[in-house]
């Protein structure tokens, strides 16, 4: 008997695409390629429940996302690592404070307890101690797009989520940095066999390098 899907889209429709159906089993890497930016943005908004669909459902870890109350959605999102394209950081918190916000909030973890994990993540991304120290003290507005994404990725990974959703993580990033980021994401995915990784990607050459088990091309 196969395991229940971690993510299931059932005839999901938004203004820019229609009737998208798929079932993502535990452990899979899935790549949604979107030729039009609007499609990707709307799929992201639907998967993170910031927009309601025209039709259809999103089943996330067995729960109908749009039938849940706000509090139930918040509880579910503790198991989801969502990494928006712009990082989605809190502007009045420094990079370090952004990284430790969810683990401190949900699990009461003292920031010093996760320091080693964060250092390991940023080492993978190619930063030395000095660069890391400088980065952690800065506010989001003082960070580059790539740095904001690094912070968002580290923040999501610290929560050890069951599913990671990345929104165009390699767009606008230099090739080598994108390759490092992808390596980190794949290593994190493989660290837990049931973890699902969802990549929402624009139609660009680097997207092909994501080693996906399933590729779904969105068509208007």
């Amino acid at each position, binding site marked *: 008997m196969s395991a229940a899907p971690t993510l299931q889209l059932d005839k999901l429709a938004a203004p820019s695409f229609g009737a998208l159906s798929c079932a993502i089993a535990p452990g899979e890497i899935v790549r949604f390629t979107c030729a039009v930016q609007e499609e990707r943005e709307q799929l992201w908004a639907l998967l*993170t429940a*910031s927009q309601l669909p025209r039709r259809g459902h999103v089943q996330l870890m067995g729960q109908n996302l749009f039938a849940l109350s706000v509090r139930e*959605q918040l509880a579910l999102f503790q198991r*989801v690592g969502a990494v928006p394209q712009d990082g*989605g950081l809190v*502007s*009045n918190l420094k990079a370090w404070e952004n990284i430790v916000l969810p683990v401190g*909030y*949900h699990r009461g973890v003292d920031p010093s307890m996760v320091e080693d994990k964060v250092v390991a993540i940023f080492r993978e991304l190619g930063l030395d101690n000095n660069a890391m120290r400088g980065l952690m003290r800065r506010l989001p507005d003082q960070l580059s797009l790539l740095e904001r994404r690094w912070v968002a990725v580290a923040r999501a990974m610290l929560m050890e989520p069951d599913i990671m959703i990345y929104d165009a993580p390699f767009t606008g990033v230099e090739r080598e940095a994108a390759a490092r980021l992808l390596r980190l994401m794949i290593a994190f995915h493989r660290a837990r066999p049931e973890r699902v990784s969802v990549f929402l990607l624009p139609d660009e050459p680097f997207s092909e390098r994501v080693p996906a088990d399933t590729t779904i091309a969105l068509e208007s």
Partner: protein
Amino acid sequence: MRSLTNVAALINPESLGRPLVATFLYWRGFLALLRYVIAHWRVLGLAPVRRVFQRQIYFTGVQAMGAVSMIALIAGVVITTQITSLVGSANPGVTARILLWTLVRELGPLLSAIVIIARSSAATASELASMRLRGELDSLRRLGIEPLDYLIVPRIVGMTIAVVAVTFYFQIIAVVSGLGFAAFVRGFSFMRGLENVVALLDLTEVLVSLLKALVFGLVISVTSCLYGLRVERSVTDIPRAVTRAVLQNVLTLFLLDAVITYAFFV
């Protein structure tokens, strides 16, 4: 003909209705937010929320001390100068009574609140408004964090406590500086003046003053957060939200000051 048009404009249902609807929406939002804070104050037990709360106390209370000290000092000197020129320096009892009425009952809570409105109300409203426009409230939800719990509860509680503390501080500085100035310039007995103030200061006086500070603190914090959260989709909404928050705060403050003074001292 022209005056008829003016009268028509005055009784135009739209021009009458809009402020009424706005007032109704303001108080409905105000009470809803206040109810939320009362129901969820326990989130202050979470370390990240506590940090926001501490920052709010620091920003609204501690950082306002300089401005508050200066205004309290000047208010104390000005009021005492007026009193002593009215009743003379040989009448410490009357001086103490008027000092208490003006500085402790009225000016203390009111001027402290106005300083906080100028510093923190505008800052809070614009900060929340820009966070909302940048989609940071959605970002918090994606992290499983309710934005009202993380952003609003600690701000409202922190600001309210800060207003109470700042008011208390203002009153002490104003009374002491007023009496000190009178002693220095007019040969008034500082100790006798202070004894009279302490003797006249009964529990009702203190409690009503604290009640005013508490109510003003709640009004300023809830109103600032409310207008900050109400921005829609454009950057031009931010200055509008800030202006509305400040204006609404000042109006509500004077209205409630009058109501509380009337209820306890008339």
